[in-house]
């Protein structure tokens, strides 16, 4: 059997604060193959953001292991994830998270600077990506001068600039208006089809999860845990018009029923 691109093996994360102990994620396992587009769906507080932060070395794990290409990447304690592992991943935040003192282009090129990737080919890559999402005219603008949709596009290509194999997206379009969001989703699918990256997409929007991904991991709260895995047998490429098809609606209702079973009263 093929080695999974990403593997969570009984991962648990416990946060200790002064007053209480919070189990953010409990005994979570999943396997994702290279080139897959999967969603993690759940209400706020279910630990879905914690999952990809553990994968990207931002937060350490309490128990269990995480593997990328069969290599264990959570080294435990305060040990930092090595740059060659981090280079395999690009993180897209819920907010654009641009640094306001840099230009749009400097923001997009930030990972290159930190990873020490220099030279014409990398510079060309920045320009290519800027062009791909229609930002080339705004290269020297400050983040405060462009719209929210533009900023989020910049956030997406910043995560791709060092050519990672995996994209981790933390509700990336949640702060955008409905129209821009739909447009960005289609652009994302386009990018995914062209580049064949492995994508983990975090969302609390059921429709978005069905439209984009091949498989949805439904999470519940208190403690954050895996409720159900739903494989979506919908044709690709996906179109916005699909959301009215009976199969799409069927999946949506199925996911809604899983989310509905989560005891909302337990959410703090």
């Amino acid at each position, binding site marked *: 059997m093929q080695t999974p691109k990403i593997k969570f093996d009984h991962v648990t994360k416990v946060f200790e604060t002064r007053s209480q102990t919070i189990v953010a994620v409990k005994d979570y396992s999943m396997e994702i193959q290279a080139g897959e587009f999967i969603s993690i769906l759940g209400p706020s507080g279910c630990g879905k953001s914690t999952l990809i932060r553990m994968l990207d070395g*931002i937060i350490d794990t309490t128990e269990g292991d995480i593997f990328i290409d069969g290599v264990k990447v959570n080294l435990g304690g305060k040990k930092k994830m090595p740059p060659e592992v981090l280079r395999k991943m690009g993180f897209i935040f819920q907010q654009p998270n641009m640094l306001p*003192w840099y230009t749009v282009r400097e923001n997009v090129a930030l990972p290159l600077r*930190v990873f020490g990737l220099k030279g014409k080919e990398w510079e060309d890559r920045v320009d290519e990506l800027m062009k791909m999402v229609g930002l080339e005219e705004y290269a020297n603008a400050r983040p405060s001068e462009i719209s929210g949709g533009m900023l989020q596009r910049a956030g997406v290509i910043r995560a791709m600039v060092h050519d990672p194999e995996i994209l981790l997206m933390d509700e990336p379009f949640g702060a955008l208006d409905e129209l821009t969001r739909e447009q960005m989703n289609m652009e994302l699918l386009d990018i995914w089809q062209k580049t064949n990256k492995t994508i983990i997409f975090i969302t609390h929007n059921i429709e978005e999860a069905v439209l984009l991904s091949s498989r949805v991991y439904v999470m519940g709260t208190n403690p954050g845990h895996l409720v159900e895995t739903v494989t979506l047998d919908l044709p690709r490429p996906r179109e916005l018009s699909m959301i009215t098809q009976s199969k799409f609606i069927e999946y949506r209702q199925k996911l809604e029923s899983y989310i509905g079973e989560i005891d909302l009263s337990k959410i703090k």
Partner: protein
Amino acid sequence: MNVKNRVVSILAPIASFLLIFAIWEAACRINEIPAWFLPMPSEIFKSMVVDFQDYWPHLLVTLQCVLIGFLIAIPVGLLIATLITSFPLLNAAMSPYITFLVTTPLISLIPLLMLAMGYGMNMRITTVVIQSFAVINMNACTGFNNVPTIRRELMQSVGASRFQTYRMMILPSAATDIITGLRLAAIFATTTCISVEYNAGNTGLGSQIIKYSQYLQTTQSFACIFYVTVIGLIMYGLIALFQKKIVSWQE
């Protein structure tokens, strides 16, 4: 509209300035207020020009003490803030002393510092540094500690080193707070320097204000006070210039 706004924003303070001094002048003349009690502004400005040679060496001494002290206080304050926000143990160990320095009026230590260091420039500069670095440090700490988590996560996600994170993200994030600290420190520096000069030695504008007051030469006292204002304006201008250069992205 824009041009009009700009003209107004330049003319308005000049107009109000002239108005205030006109009222002051008129009040003195009409009520025949004695010069030792409240001199006329025209006399004060005349003295600032005519007796400039008397004031100049003192102006120079005060300006040097304030400026040198302030310029030493900036790196000291920022360095300590960087260290204590990076190492929690250091923070716990040092923050009581920083609070102590900010809250203790340094004027109360002047006699002791005089005893140890004499009346010269070194002692004045030292006092200015001690009084102003603490406020720079406090504000810089606030800025460093209030960096948004999401920016830290961004730097972590690309595996930035401590130094890269500091230079590319933490320092600019804290720029606004640091400049607030500088503004306060500039005021502290001038106030401290004048206070020291009231008490120690016979050079510097502070010593001259005391001297002229004792001889009831109020006009000359006021001239010195106005020159202190000039020093304050120089400091303010320097910080504004620095702000424009460093945080131009905020506009």
